[in-house]
């Protein structure tokens, strides 16, 4: 028996001449666990999933699923995995049941065994009343649940979920989280999940890797990563735009404050004891002539982990990507 379900070594992918979508990433996923790939738009999450699911070929590096190399043993890999792509891939002109049936047939299932499997999936994804309805009339949440059900028809040992909850409203999202946790816990399915949502990775993943611009910038358990950030996260909203150097100079003398990063008009800093450092931070800013409008103190979140390793917030990274795409 293999302990490692997914093994990725030095994977790189270049699209055409210009775009380096992946720039040498490596990680391992233990059998029966949920692994999270966390990163902003354009980080390379979908590219990783496409290579691991045999859809796309890497420029260099190797990857294997349950010991099968994705290039050399693509056929075995395909039989082993289930894939939920980033956007819904159900056939909208067909019913839920027809979608599930075709999916099963492609995995060589048939007859009563297949129909029974379809019934039980419709049931567990709360679609039993809608099995014979055309997918076009489904809500976003229903369509997403159907897409996940389709990926599970053949009981895959390894499941890939590319942003399974993007675009879902909070209630549907938490239902999806329950489904995913249950899959890993009850069926022993190994799950690789990509997400933008820090709370999602925090909630579901045993281990996670933070991806930024095709590289893994941090890896570990959610708690471990948060623990690396000693102390609390402090955010100060400034009254006006300032330079990073000005802020650093102003706070140089304040004890116990580190990792000062200025993000537009928000100052991020780390303090061993947040509540206690706030007065001295404010005083130091004040004497440097910098006005502070708002202050928040929080326990470190994965967002802070991302900030520390990628040098920018997820939000900023996304904005930059959007601008690049627009340009």
């Amino acid at each position: 028996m293999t302990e490692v379900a997914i093994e990725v070594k030095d994977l790189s992918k270049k699209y055409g001449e210009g775009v380096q979508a992946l720039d040498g990433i490596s990680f391992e996923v233990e059998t029966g666990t949920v692994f999270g790939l966390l990163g902003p738009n354009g980080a390379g999450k979908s590219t990783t999933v496409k290579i691991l699911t045999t859809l796309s070929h890497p420029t260099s590096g190797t990857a294997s699923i349950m010991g099968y190399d994705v290039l050399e043993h693509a056929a075995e890999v395909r039989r082993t995995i289930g894939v939920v792509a980033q956007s819904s891939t159900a056939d909208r002109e067909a019913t839920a049941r027809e979608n599930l049936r075709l999916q099963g047939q492609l995995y060589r299932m048939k007859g009563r065994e297949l129909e029974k499997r379809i019934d039980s999936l419709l049931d567990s994804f709360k679609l039993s009343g809608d099995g014979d309805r055309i997918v076009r009339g489904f809500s976003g949440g229903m369509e997403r649940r159907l897409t996940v059900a389709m990926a599970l028809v053949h009981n895959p040992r390894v499941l890939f979920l590319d942003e399974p909850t993007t675009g879902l409203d909070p209630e549907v999202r938490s239902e999806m989280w329950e489904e995913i946790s249950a899959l890993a816990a009850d069926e022993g399915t190994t799950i690789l999940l990509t997400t933008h949502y820090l709370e999602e990775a925090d909630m579901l993943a045993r281990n996670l890797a933070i991806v930024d611009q095709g590289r893994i910038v941090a890896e570990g358990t959610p708690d471990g990563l948060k623990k690396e950030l000693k102390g609390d996260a402090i955010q100060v909203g400034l009254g006006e735009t300032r330079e990073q150097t000005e802020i650093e100079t102003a706070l140089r003398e304040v004890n116990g404050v580190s990792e000062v990063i200025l993000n537009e008009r928000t100052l991020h800093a780390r303090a061993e004891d947040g509540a206690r450092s706030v007065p001295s931070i404010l005083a130091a800013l004040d004497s440097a002539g910098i006005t502070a409008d708002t202050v928040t103190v929080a326990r470190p979140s994965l967002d802070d982990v991302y900030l520390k390793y990628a040098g920018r917030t997820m939000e900023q990274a996304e904005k930059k990507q959007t601008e690049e795409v627009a340009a």
Partner: protein
Amino acid sequence: MNLFADTWHMAQRHIRALIRQPWWIAVTLVQPIIWLVLFGGLFTSMEDTPGWPAGVTFHEFIIPGVIVMTAFFSAGWGGMGMIEDINRGIIDRFLVSPAIRSSIITGALLANFLTIAIQSLIVLGLGAIMGASYPGGPLGMLILIVISGIVGFGFGAFSYGLALIIRKEESLIAMMQFLLLPLTFLAAAFIPLTLAPDWIANVAKFNPVNWAIEAGRSALIDSSPDWNLILTRTGLLLVFGALMAAFATRAFRSYQRTV
């Protein structure tokens, strides 16, 4: 074996989607009626033109042309559905499953062939109601339908190949329009080529649509079919179909490189 099973499952998906589009069924039925009624009404006087084949009504003459053109048009637009499937990620979903890859194309082609056969039968039936007679009998009809199927296969494969390469609906529409109309008019669909200008008759020799129309017509309405013509044209059409299938396969590989 898996190839046949997968092809059939993929074809079912396309056929179901078609049957569920009421407007598609309406257009399929109305279009040949328009061809037959309108063109038939307008141009029956053609029958009196010197050089018109003796003893053949205008309806009888255009029925094989209408059938081949219906096949050729519906196959030519097949790529539109392929682009939609690519954009919706459905093709990628099939590619990460153990399904035989070529079944994505062969399934669509099979669905296409079945619709062509049904459309052909509708046109033949309509023609009979309007008084056309088919001296070629059931065998002639079968040959005509098979030939239309090969035309559909070739142009369907061509359209899927283009779709996989250009992947933009607008570009595909432009390309197909650029091709469909000339190929239709440079063929003996409505008048015998003997009545057409020489240059058209010469160009038509290289037009697969014309091969199909001439062979199908001979099989259906000649009391003694020209077997030599039927067999050579069918052979040429098969070569054309094979070339297009090779093109579609290559296009598929090039698509995969860009994913």
